[in-house]
């Protein structure tokens, strides 16, 4: 199927009418977005519909890794620029992936909570909406980040990256870590080693402490100017220091 973007005015309209559409979000569908050609912009790019149709989850198994892999492959060579366009994800979410989104982020019973919940997970809000909150775009962005690690397969990278919410957040929210491919790859390699052994590095306090150590070094040395070996030596030091126990 063709990759489609919701038209900007339709996006605004949909976002402003969450309350009006609560029943559709809970039990119905937004098929009119597929039928009414004034709702979307067709592009020349394709989305692999077969792969998209395999994306599902239930309450007991979110299938995060599989769904990241499926969506990333389904979207083909989607550019970073377009991946940062909320209209793309919101269209896909309200059409092909509505049921998945409902299952992954169940809509609260209470209307007020439901409206906020839908705005957060069914649309894109704020700085980290793409990679953290939107039910669909987060899958693609996590896969895109992990795909930068050349030393591991995408599945291996995702396995480490998605293992622990705090670890993932600590990485994403530090631009010096998540944007710098060498630093990001080196950290994921460390996590991968730990994953195969005792998973010690996934301990919340331990990982935070290691990131704090890295921040301290990054405060006086320009990590971007350092080569891979030097970064690895620095990380060895950061990850070798045990966290200080709170007194």
């Amino acid at each position: 199927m063709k990759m489609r973007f919701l038209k900007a005015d339709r996006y605004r309209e949909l976002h402003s009418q969450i309350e009006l559409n609560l029943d559709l979000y809970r039990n119905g569908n937004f098929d009119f977005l597929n039928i009414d050609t004034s709702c979307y912009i067709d592009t020349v790019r394709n989305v692999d519909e077969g792969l998209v149709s395999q994306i599902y989850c239930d309450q007991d198994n979110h299938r995060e890794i599989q769904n990241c892999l499926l969506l990333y492959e389904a979207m083909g060579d989607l550019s970073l620029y377009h991946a940062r366009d909320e209209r793309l994800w919101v269209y896909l979410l309200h059409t092909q992936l509505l049921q998945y989104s409902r299952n992954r982020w169940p809509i609260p019973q209470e209307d007020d909570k439901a409206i906020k919940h839908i705005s957060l997970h069914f649309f894109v809000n704020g700085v980290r909406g793409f990679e953290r909150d939107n039910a669909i775009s987060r899958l693609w962005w996590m896969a895109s980040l992990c795909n930068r690690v050349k030393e591991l397969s995408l599945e291996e990278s995702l396995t480490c990256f998605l293992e622990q919410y705090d670890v993932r957040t600590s990485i994403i929210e530090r631009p010096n870590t998540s944007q710098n491919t060498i630093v990001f790859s080196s950290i994921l390699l460390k996590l991968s080693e730990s994953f195969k052994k005792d998973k010690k590095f996934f301990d919340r306090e331990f990982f935070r402490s290691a990131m704090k150590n890295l921040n301290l070094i990054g405060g006086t040395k320009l990590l971007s100017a350092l080569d891979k070996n030097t970064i690895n030596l620095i990380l060895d030091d950061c990850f070798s220091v045990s966290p200080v126990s709170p007194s």
Partner: protein
Amino acid sequence: MKFDRHKAFPYPVLRPYNDDFIDLEFQINAEWEVEGETAKVKIDYAISSEDIKQTIEHGNAVYISVISCRDTYTRNNVESNTPYSEAIFSVNDLRGEVRIDSYVVVVNDVPFFQSPDLNPEFGLDPIKYGVGDVMAQDETYVYYFNKEHFKPVESVFDLVIKASQPKGQWTIGFEGDHIQIEVNPLMKASIDSARNSKKNRYILLNSIYSVAVTQAIQLLKENPDDFSENTWAKVIFNQVNTHNCNLENDPAYLVAQKLLRFPLLLLENFIFKGGDQ
């Protein structure tokens, strides 16, 4: 490593708002050129410390700019031992805020750095810089990147219905990302229908749109900061740069003509001369 004027380094760093080096400066100038699918950034470095310059000339330090885009997680370094460097990006890899952080960074240990320009509080002993240490840092240069900003100015206008509008009157809303031209419902239908013809579009460009662009430019001349976050303003600012206009000194109506590529010519060529047949 973000620029932070309050940050304390364990060694002297030449940077703005700081007197580790007395009366010296390190500054960059960056210019973006966007053509087709590529965005090229050209960076000039100016440093007035002869001792840091020498360290660079001896191969022990380099100019480095880290170009990063938070939205797309794109980050590239450009490194040079001359006071100029450039980098080329795909426009598909940049979106939103693009930052350029520039430094002089040590690439080989500098165990005995001395300079008469150092603040005397560092004492007389030579300074030791290690690999990765920063000798100079400039403030972050921020550019807001959006393909839409390179689109024609006309692309930021939306014709919208305002039910209470008298039929012949139109008003302009500048609050959103796009400029809203508000017309009566019947007029909206009439203009929508008229826009199917190229001639009519040229007439609209010379009437409503010319006036609206002029008004938008006037607002930006008077209060540039009030609209700095609105997409329409970013598009206009970008087009003002592209067309080498001087927003401060040029009259708004002249800037508008340049940005709309002199729409009177469209009337002459396609309507007065009976073109568009």
